[in-house]
């Protein structure tokens, strides 16, 4: 097992190399400054944006929307998934529709939402919700379906039923699959957030909006900063939040091989 310290360096090394090469290319005038501003300018601009609080405002409104949409998707997704898993008729009815709806690109909902729900926050939050909902519902349903019937019967014989059966038996037993759904879901929701912010005209703040607005001044610097932040935040949401959840639950319980 490597120490934390050296793995951080190993992770950052490629970025530093790319940044150095990039800086060199621009300084040697191989590409125009306005087409590709060098990392040094990027960092100073990042600093100004942070100090002025602009960046925080953008990032804050994005995370706020993401939280509302995603929490709704998790709550309803798990509930509906569990319902579908427990009723055979419902499952036969809705499973094909559901697997079809998952394959619809989330961005495709946005024009429909813009027409029906207006050009503001509601559209973005609904897109985030839809992005996460189907993946979470589907994986919850599959997970609960695949719970070992022996385990279920054992719990029933010992008099566990109803809500307790769900919370204490079904949920832990299907958590591996549910977490897969949560991870897929946060990815879809994140994309829906960025796309939704860019396309909704009345949204003023948000990290996607920042990138989109930079277009009107051809401000490549702000676009690059936005992209970097979008990439790192997406990465952090998955690695830190959901990886942590996985480690604290299923890996600890020994349901998943440690990697």
């Amino acid at each position, binding site marked *: 097992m490597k120490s934390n310290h050296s793995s951080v360096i*190993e*992770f*950052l*090394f*490629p*970025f530093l*190399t*790319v940044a150095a090469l990039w800086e060199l290319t621009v300084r040697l005038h191989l590409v125009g400054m306005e*087409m590709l501003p060098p990392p040094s300018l990027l960092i100073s601009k990042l600093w100004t944006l942070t100090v002025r609080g602009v960046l925080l405002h953008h990032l804050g409104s994005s995370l706020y929307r993401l939280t509302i949409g995603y929490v709704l998707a998790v709550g309803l997704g798990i509930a509906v998934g569990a319902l579908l898993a427990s009723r*055979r*008729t419902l499952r*036969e*009815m*809705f*499973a*094909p*529709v559901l697997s*079809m709806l998952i*394959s*619809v*690109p989330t*961005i*495709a909902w*946005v*024009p*429909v939402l*813009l*027409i*029906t729900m207006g050009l503001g926050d509601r559209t973005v939050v609904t897109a985030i919700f839809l992005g996460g909902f189907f993946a979470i519902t589907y994986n919850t349903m599959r997970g609960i379906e695949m719970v070992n019937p022996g385990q279920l019967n054992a719990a029933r014989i010992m008099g566990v039923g109803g809500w307790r059966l769900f919370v204490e038996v079904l949920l832990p037993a299907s958590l591996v699959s549910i977490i897969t759904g949560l991870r897929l879901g946060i*990815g879809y929701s*994140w*994309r829906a957030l*960025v*796309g939704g912010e*860019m*396309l909704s005209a009345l949204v003023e703040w948000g990290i*996607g909006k920042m*990138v*989109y607005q*930079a*277009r009107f001044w*051809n401000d*490549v610097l702000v*676009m*690059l900063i*936005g*992209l970097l932040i*979008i*990439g*790192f935040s*997406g*990465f952090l949401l*998955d690695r830190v939040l959901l990886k942590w959840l996985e480690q604290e639950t299923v890996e600890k319980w020994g349901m998943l091989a440690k990697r």
Partner: protein
Amino acid sequence: MEVFWRKRRSNNRTGSRWWLPLLPVVVFLAGWQLLSGVNLINPALFPPPTSIAGELVDLYSSGLPTRSLLLTHVMATLRRLIVAAAVGILSGTLVGALMGISRRLYRFLDPLITVLMPVPGIAMAPLFIVWLGFGDPTIIALGSIAAFFPLAYNTAAGVRSIDLQLVRAARMMGADKGTLLLDVYLPWAAGYVLVGIKLGLARCWRTIIAVEFIAAASWGLGYMIWDAAEYLRADVVYGGIFLLIAIYFVIEKGLINTLEKHTVERWGMVRRQ
């Protein structure tokens, strides 16, 4: 005993209840048609399914003797998809294979890929518009990038996961480098590459539609939908979205499943479900 009984019951049920999945769709469409017809929901925002279908037919037949409006939009998008997917898949597989062979390269590219992969294509669109302008170059470039990542990632995983016993056995039986690559590495990694192609194609399609929303100059399914949304032509929007779902469904079922059947299934790497 119990399992046996269960199986029989489930067979019985699926046999007689094949229409169940159609029920929610039919109820949904009928309800929509009815509510929209009697103005309980605003028909300007939710035009009844029949008028959406009618609009699609109109779009198809407008300009027909020479070239159909709808078909031109669809073909523009499909052309971009083919070029972008080809570039993305080939370059992704190549880079992935190199990453699989060289540990050094893997360690260098892996962090870059993990950070760049979650950036949605549409977010890169403003940047690429500055670099390449509106239209095909931007759309195709972003489509290729979208397809590239899953391919590189999955191919690398596939090559890295190869059973070294197999490689040694093949070497011992006198396989040279070319044979090793074609007869051992390729079939082993093919399953992974196919998963990559599936994911990559989906990402590519999604990105092309999304980028067409903001970067297309005049044609494309995404452009058609976006243009209609700006003028509040709800029927065109719904029709276009229905079409893009249907087209992708055909691509996935037709193309990818055929590809699977002729490669990994024939080589016995996966079994048909």
